[in-house]
């Protein structure tokens, strides 16, 4: 069946696809959570991912704080930046047409990326691998760090899903998404819930950035191109479901890996091609039961 294509190459690309898929899954989950709660499409997501990576790099190079503490500190810093943004920028725009909040988040991304580029240049900055070495799987050499990324992202995604689907806080979130006024009359502080949701989604992006720092180089533009692919992933999965976003993320990571084996020229467009087909066959998204509006 796979004439001319070695099993080694195939399995290797599937694993690399799974790693890319981990990032797609976590980033699109953050986008869907923010959209579901606030109806904001967060164009700053890519910049916030980049900020997470930069925070980790700064912590290491200026304060000597290593990878493991950064894994907590950097996302927190990015989340705080998100909370600040939500309070001063998105809240005042909440009553207006959604296009204004979308464009405002885009403007912030433009400013943040530009400032980082002025301060640190466009070239990538290296970040040392915290778990060197790897294991020989027989068909390929698997660095430990990549295994860690995949495992960690699965745990994060499942954890977030459990938090939203099986806890009281998650129930408030879902209720506030359906009908904010009624939830408010029950004495729940909906604006605060929104701020926290945005902070959480943005923090997830920051976390992805820290995870990505040792694999990809830390550079100002690392987020913007990735963000567009993640948008396509979210469109395919549908805006209505967290599990849908996560599953689509992993799936498309693998699909992209497989395309690199069978038809490398199409690897950069295969996700967009998938989006085209998905929009044609299931306009509401493959995991959405109803039109997510």
């Amino acid at each position, binding site marked *: 069946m796979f004439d001319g294509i070695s099993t080694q190459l195939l399995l290797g690309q599937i694993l690399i696809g799974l790693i890319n898929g981990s990032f797609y899954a976590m980033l699109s989950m953050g986008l869907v959570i923010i959209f579901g709660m606030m*109806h904001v*499409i967060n164009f700053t997501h890519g910049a916030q991912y980049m900020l997470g990576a930069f925070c980790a790099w700064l912590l290491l190079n200026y304060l000597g704080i290593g990878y493991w503490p950064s894994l907590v500190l950097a996302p927190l810093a990015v989340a705080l930046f998100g909370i600040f943004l939500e309070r001063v*920028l998105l809240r*005042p*725009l909440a009553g*207006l*047409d*959604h*296009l*204004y909040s*979308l*464009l*405002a988040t*885009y*403007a*912030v*991304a*433009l*400013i943040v*990326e*530009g*400032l980082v*580029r*002025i301060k640190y240049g466009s070239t990538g900055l290296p970040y040392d691998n915290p778990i060197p070495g790897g294991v020989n799987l027989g068909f390929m050499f698997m660095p430990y760090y990549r295994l860690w990324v995949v495992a960690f992202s699965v745990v994060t995604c499942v954890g977030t899903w459990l938090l939203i689907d099986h806890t009281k806080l998650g129930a408030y979130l879902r209720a506030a998404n359906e009908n904010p006024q009624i939830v408010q009359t029950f004495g729940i502080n909906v604006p605060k819930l929104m701020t926290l949701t945005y902070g959480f989604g943005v923090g997830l992006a920051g976390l992805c950035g820290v995870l990505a720092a040792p694999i990809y180089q830390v550079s100002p533009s690392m987020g913007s191109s990735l963000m*567009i*692919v993640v*948008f*396509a992933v*979210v*469109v395919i999965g549908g*805006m209505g479901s967290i599990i849908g976003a996560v599953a689509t993320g992993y799936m498309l990571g693998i699909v992209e890996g497989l395309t690199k084996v069978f038809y490398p*020229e199409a690897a*950069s*467009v295969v996700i*967009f*091609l998938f*989006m*085209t087909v998905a*929009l*044609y066959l299931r*306009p*509401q998204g493959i995991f959405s039961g109803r*039109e*997510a*509006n």
Partner: protein
Amino acid sequence: MRLPLLAAVVAVAILLVAPFYFYSVTLMTIMCFVVFACSFNLLLGYSGLLCFGHAMFFGGAAYITGHLLKTTPMSLELAILCGGIFSGLLGLLIGVLSIRRQGIQFAMITLAFSQFVYFIFLQSSFTGGEDGMQAIPRNALFGLFDVSDNAVFYYVVLAVTLVCVFVYYRIVHSPYGEVLKAVRDNQPRVESLGFNPERVKLLAFVLSATMAGIAGGMKATVYQFATLTDASWPISAEVILMTLLGGLGTLTGPIFGAGIIIMLNDYLAGFGEWALISQGVILLVVIVFFRRGFVGEFDALTRYLRGRRAEAAVTKPENSVQAL
């Protein structure tokens, strides 16, 4: 003579003599972006659809026009028109798919599609990939007139721009334009009146894409090269900024917006990153403080002053005719 007509005549008169006082390439760039921004305003300002990938129509048509001029003896105006038609067809294809998803997600989908188109251009051989398409000739206009000199070509660009702006004006003020605005403001009501809002929006998307294509084809002939930058998403964002800065849903807004941003880019070209940062800052300031944009705020101000003057005069009974 009515005031707007007078203003239009004065503007055309200024444009006719402008190349004697200003650098003609800058003026032509501004006009290309005026057409581009008008096309965008037709979509966002009058139908409420936020397309975050308009550069694919602009850059795509630039390649098509350039390719036709390079490989065929086609006359200049036909090549630009073919660029527009290509973008219109691309718009039809993408519009059919994107309009199926409601609301603000349209922005996300069109951005993803534009990246798709960008990658296709990157890998196609005819576009020259990262190097771009060089040395696009300016074939004779109507197959007769030589327009290779910028001093002459300026008037070709001016003529195309005036035709496009006039068409844009006619579309906005046509019965179709009224339906379009109604769809933007209250879609269920339009649907209940027997219109098909999806089709109305799709037509707006195709018209807008065609016009953006003409702007792109024109730019390829002005600079005589076409690059990936023209099809990249920062250009999509720039046209949003132009339209918003000028005034969303105002007739002359895009004209001012395009002029201001192109001149600003020209001025900030030497400052590297600061050009993009200043675009971000301007966008934020417009969104937070001046959502009506340059022309919109100006209109509001004159209306306010006129209102005060009317108040000072004898209060007449209002003779506004309510629409049925």
